[in-house]
């Protein structure tokens, strides 16, 4: 039904999840991330409380393994669930309920884990892990994207394709990247395309977004860019007026 990767960047401490599924809008259901705390993927008859509670347990100081034990214990529906946790120290823990539909399972590595259910086979998560390992020189959004692509190329969800999502948090309360493809015949390449648009249009803006300490970082640049946008609009407006007349 779903294949996902949750990971922590060993260089920056960024935390992220990438996911794809034969379900509508999986990008809005699977990832639960808090900067400086942890990244959780909750899937297979998603119980969102495994995400919320898991982040709370991590925030209280439990390592991934202990947080997972408490989550699984707390859920009477545990046999159907699949959940993966990466904590701020890069420790990982995952659980695949015995009634998750075949193939279902996970592989864990240093600072990351790949998990899935109703997959074509174990190769999907293995290919994801390998792609993540091989992309060590890239930034974590790119690495997550590559892992997701490798999972799809290995066959992905055996029910088909529908949605995908990518979320990464660094130091602030909001994500630096949060992209979704909710319904598409080929969601992973579509997510790659949207990710390319993000790189081209948005990544430059990141340093200009308010932080908790500074609501106006690089402000002269924000004001200048804003003026450019206004000028473009005026030109567009006069251009349109010309065409109409």
């Amino acid at each position, binding site marked *: *039904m779903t294949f996902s990767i949750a990971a922590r960047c060993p260089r920056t401490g960024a935390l992220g999840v990438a996911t794809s599924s034969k379900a*509508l*809008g999986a*990008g*809005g*259901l699977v990832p639960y991330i808090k900067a400086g705390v942890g990244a959780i993927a909750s899937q297979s*008859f*998603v*119980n*969102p*409380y495994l995400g*919320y509670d898991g982040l709370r347990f991590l925030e209280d100081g439990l390592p991934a393994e202990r947080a997972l034990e408490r989550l699984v214990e*707390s*859920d*009477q*529906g545990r046999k*159907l669930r699949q959940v993966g946790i990466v904590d701020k120290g890069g420790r990982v823990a995952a659980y695949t309920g015995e009634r998750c*539909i075949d193939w279902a399972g996970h592989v864990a590595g240093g600072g990351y884990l790949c998990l899935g259910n*109703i997959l074509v086979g174990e190769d999907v998560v293995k290919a994801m892990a390998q792609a993540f390992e091989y992309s060590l020189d890239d930034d974590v959004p790119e690495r997550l994207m590559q892992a997701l692509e490798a999972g799809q190329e290995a066959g992905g969800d*055996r*029910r*088909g394709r529908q949605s995908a999502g990518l979320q990464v948090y660094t130091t*602030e*309360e*909001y*994500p630096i990247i*949060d*992209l*979704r*493809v*909710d*319904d598409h015949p080929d969601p992973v390449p579509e997510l790659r*395309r*949207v990710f390319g*648009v*993000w790189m081209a*249009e*948005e990544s430059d803006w990141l340093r200009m*977004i*308010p932080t*908790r300490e500074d*609501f*106006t970082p690089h*402000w002269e640049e*924000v004001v200048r860019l*804003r003026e450019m*946008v*206004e000028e473009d*609009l005026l030109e*567009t*407006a006069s251009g349109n007026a010309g065409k109409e007349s």
Partner: protein
Amino acid sequence: MTFSIVARCPRTGALGMAVASASLACASFTVHVKGGVGAIASQATSNPFYGPDGLRLLAAGKNPDEVIAAVTSIDPARDLRQLLIVDAAGRSAAFTGSGCTTRATHAFCEGYAVGGNRLADDVVEEMARSFEMSAEEALPERLMQALEAGQVAGGDRGGRQSAGLVVSDHPDYATFNLRVDDHLDPVGELRRLVGLRADNRSTYDGFRPTREQPLPPGFVENWASIKMTLRG
């Protein structure tokens, strides 16, 4: 840059927001909805803390006017921000900074607020009118119609790129959450997704874990048929 509506359903108390913009993935940073607490649209040159801080203040008992005063008072760039709020009691308020790109405006009434910036002339008025006229419908449909009315009226003068619709009638998570992050006709595409979700309503509305009941009633009994369906 963006046009949006936040609203509370007078029948069910559900809270939600619909938004569209000529920027990438607008729903990712503008939408802040929490069931039983409120819905906040934070847009224009948005400050990402208005949403989470605003929801915390609403949950602590502040009214929407007090929330706007609190979050804008500490922000030196408030003139570039726009904020729409409705709370769980249906009280609403809005703020449009004097430096937001023309036409930047808002309107609010009992139960909802609409607003936007860089808009064509009648966008906000048409959205409000659509919302007023759809009182018989469920909240997601009303929000969708208001967004469509805003687009038909000309929407964002900068173009079209993304849209989103989020509703929650649950204390912990959104029960309706759809996004179109990069599309030539984002509002039209969002309408398609709304239709798709409606076609599978039993799947999305039938499976809804709660704190007390993480495994919904009837699920175990129906497990065999669910499993057959999922195996495909």
